[in-house]
């Protein structure tokens, strides 16, 4: 047997059977991140801090053509994306693929970076404001790829989106990179979307305005995933990151929709002790939860868990004992942020756990009831949550298609008409969620069950609620608003709408005559 002497003089066999052995070469030889100066107590504590965003970008070795990512937990209060993009642009880096979990109105500042060629591809859940108009007007060469939250997690895990550098704003972290979302002045609650990026990106740069003492426990992003940390003045505007407790709407139309939705859900076979639910943060959705609470109390029904975007209202139900546990990928308001920080049964989950269709089990699959919104729903129950009635991009795919298909009962709530626009259309301008995953549409002027759900139609045949077919609802709407002229589009594709499995469910075209 051939032997090798290792660095402490022991004889180590070169091979054992087929296994080749590497002899020890010293305590520091193969672990470059271990401090080499053991015993020197005057050296600064081991940390990953760099002074500026520019240094972090340079150290991350970001190059032309690479993919960078951000999260949207700071919502309309986000400073991070614009700060980092300005630095990248000033460094003259080009042809970047921007893969943000979503984009909001504050990201209009991306327009000059697109014009300059700094950003040439965008992958996002949605966009609004001037940026969305800019894209709809056809000013970007490559189409924007719109994904669902679950679809993005899948794409990142499968390597379809390969993130070279993730720039993740965090409300607090320590010098070694343990970060969470509920400590510090810019608290945003769950870091569910950021967690996926931290795990799969090649390089991870954290930006924070609150350096916590080591170790910053409990942490959502672990130190072993983090390369560099930059302390900035502010990662966002707290006023816009989260709002105070959302009050229940007093809009009578929203209340009517909510009453119809709660009546329907309470009469459905899904409303039983131990059920699970997800609600949105829109007026009608919040009010539905309120009315549902009354039914739960009256019939002594408790939910076993709630998923999603957690709101203060869901927290209130949890604290009242009506919902046992909360799974939170994104905390919508201050109450939810407070709760996730102090309540053990309010658990942070990442976007993959939430909705990735190809992992070994995502939470939406176990959901009983989901309440969702719609900009448009058509005669085939296809739902559009991305483009407005004028064809211009103004929304986000979000978890819509994920929860619709995963849940037992997907309830779409929306007014039948908004201003002069009918929510029910013959054919939705763009489809995010396919009708085959949508179970019922509840409006102020009637409820339509998807004819595919024969079991539900049978179940409700003796229940007195304002049931109509979708065709009847369309007719009702058109008698009020008239029949719109079709929106004119050019042939240019400005957006690809990806279904959660990675296939393309629809495309968004350039709106004709839009500046």
């Amino acid at each position, binding site marked *: 047997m051939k032997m090798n002497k290792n660095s402490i003089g022991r004889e180590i066999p070169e091979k054992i059977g087929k296994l080749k052995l590497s002899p020890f070469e010293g305590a520091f030889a193969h672990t470059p991140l271990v401090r080499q100066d053991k015993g020197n107590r005057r050296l600064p504590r081991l940390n990953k801090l760099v002074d500026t965003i520019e240094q972090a970008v340079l150290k991350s070795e970001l190059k032309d053509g690479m993919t960078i990512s951000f999260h949207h937990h700071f919502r309309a209060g986000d400073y991070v994306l614009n700060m980092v993009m300005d630095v990248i642009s000033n460094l003259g880096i080009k042809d970047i693929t921007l893969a943000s979990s979503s984009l909001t109105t504050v990201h209009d500042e991306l327009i000059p970076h697109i014009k300059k060629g700094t950003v040439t591809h965008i992958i996002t859940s949605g966009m609004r404001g001037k940026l969305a108009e800019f894209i709809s007007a056809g000013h970007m060469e490559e189409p924007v790829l719109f994904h669902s939250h679950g679809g993005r997690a899948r794409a990142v895990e499968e390597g379809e989106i390969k993130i070279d550098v993730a720039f993740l704003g965090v409300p607090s972290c320590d010098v070694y990179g343990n970060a969470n979302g509920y400590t510090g002045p810019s608290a945003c609650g769950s870091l569910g979307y950021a967690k996926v990026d931290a795990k799969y990106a090649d390089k991870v740069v954290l930006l924070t305005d609150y350096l916590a003492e080591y170790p910053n426990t409990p942490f959502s992003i672990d130190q072993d995933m983090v390369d560099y940390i930059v302390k900035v003045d502010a990662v966002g505007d707290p006023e816009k990151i989260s709002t105070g407790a959302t009050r229940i709407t007093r809009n009578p139309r929203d209340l009517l929709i909510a009453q119809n939705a709660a009546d329907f859900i309470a009469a459905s076979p899904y409303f039983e002790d131990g059920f699970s639910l997800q609600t949105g943060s829109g007026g009608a959705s919040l009010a539905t939860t309120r009315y549902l609470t009354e039914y739960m109390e009256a019939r002594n029904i408790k939910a076993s868990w709630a998923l999603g975007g957690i709101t203060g209202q869901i927290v209130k139900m949890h604290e009242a004992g009506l919902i046992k546990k909360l799974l939170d990928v994104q905390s919508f308001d201050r109450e939810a942020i407070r709760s996730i920080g102090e309540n053990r049964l309010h658990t942070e989950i990442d976007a993959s756990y939430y909705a990735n269709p190809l992992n070994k089990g995502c939470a939406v699959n176990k959901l009983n009831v989901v309440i969702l919104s719609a900009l448009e729903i058509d005669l085939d129950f296809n739902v559009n949550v991305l483009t407005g*009635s*004028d*064809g211009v991009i103004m929304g986000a795919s979000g978890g819509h298609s994920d929860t619709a298909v995963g849940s037992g009962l997907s309830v779409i709530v929306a007014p039948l008409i*908004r*201003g*002069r*626009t009918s929510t029910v259309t013959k054919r939705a301008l763009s489809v995010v969620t396919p009708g085959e995953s949508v179970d019922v549409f509840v409006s102020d002027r009637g409820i339509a069950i998807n004819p595919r759900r024969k079991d539900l139609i049978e179940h409700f045949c003796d229940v007195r609620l304002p049931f109509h077919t979708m065709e009847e609802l369309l007719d009702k709407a058109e008698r*009020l*608003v*008239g029949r*719109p*002229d079709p*929106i*004119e589009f050019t042939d240019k594709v400005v957006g690809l709408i990806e279904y959660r499995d990675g296939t393309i469910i629809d495309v968004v075209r350039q709106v004709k005559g839009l500046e």
Partner: protein
Amino acid sequence: MKIIKTGMAGSLESSDVLITVDSNTGKGRNISLESTVKRQYGKQILKVVEHTLDLLEISDVTVRLEDKGALDCTIRSRLEAAVYRAAGSETYPWESLT
């Protein structure tokens, strides 16, 4: 009916329309439209305006509409009110139009 001054009716609330009517003596109808739903309903709105002006027998007029998604019935009533105000009319023969 003759337009003698500026008449306004309506508001900029959602589902309403703000209509301003002015004289345009001897120069026909001058209608301008801004609307949140111009792409879908622009033609229909102008049709309603022309038709209402026909019924009111107004041939020379400037009409400016700032529409926030008003229904036809709203546009018709706001226009009638604005025209009557612009004509200094004391009586409002509402029913004769419908």
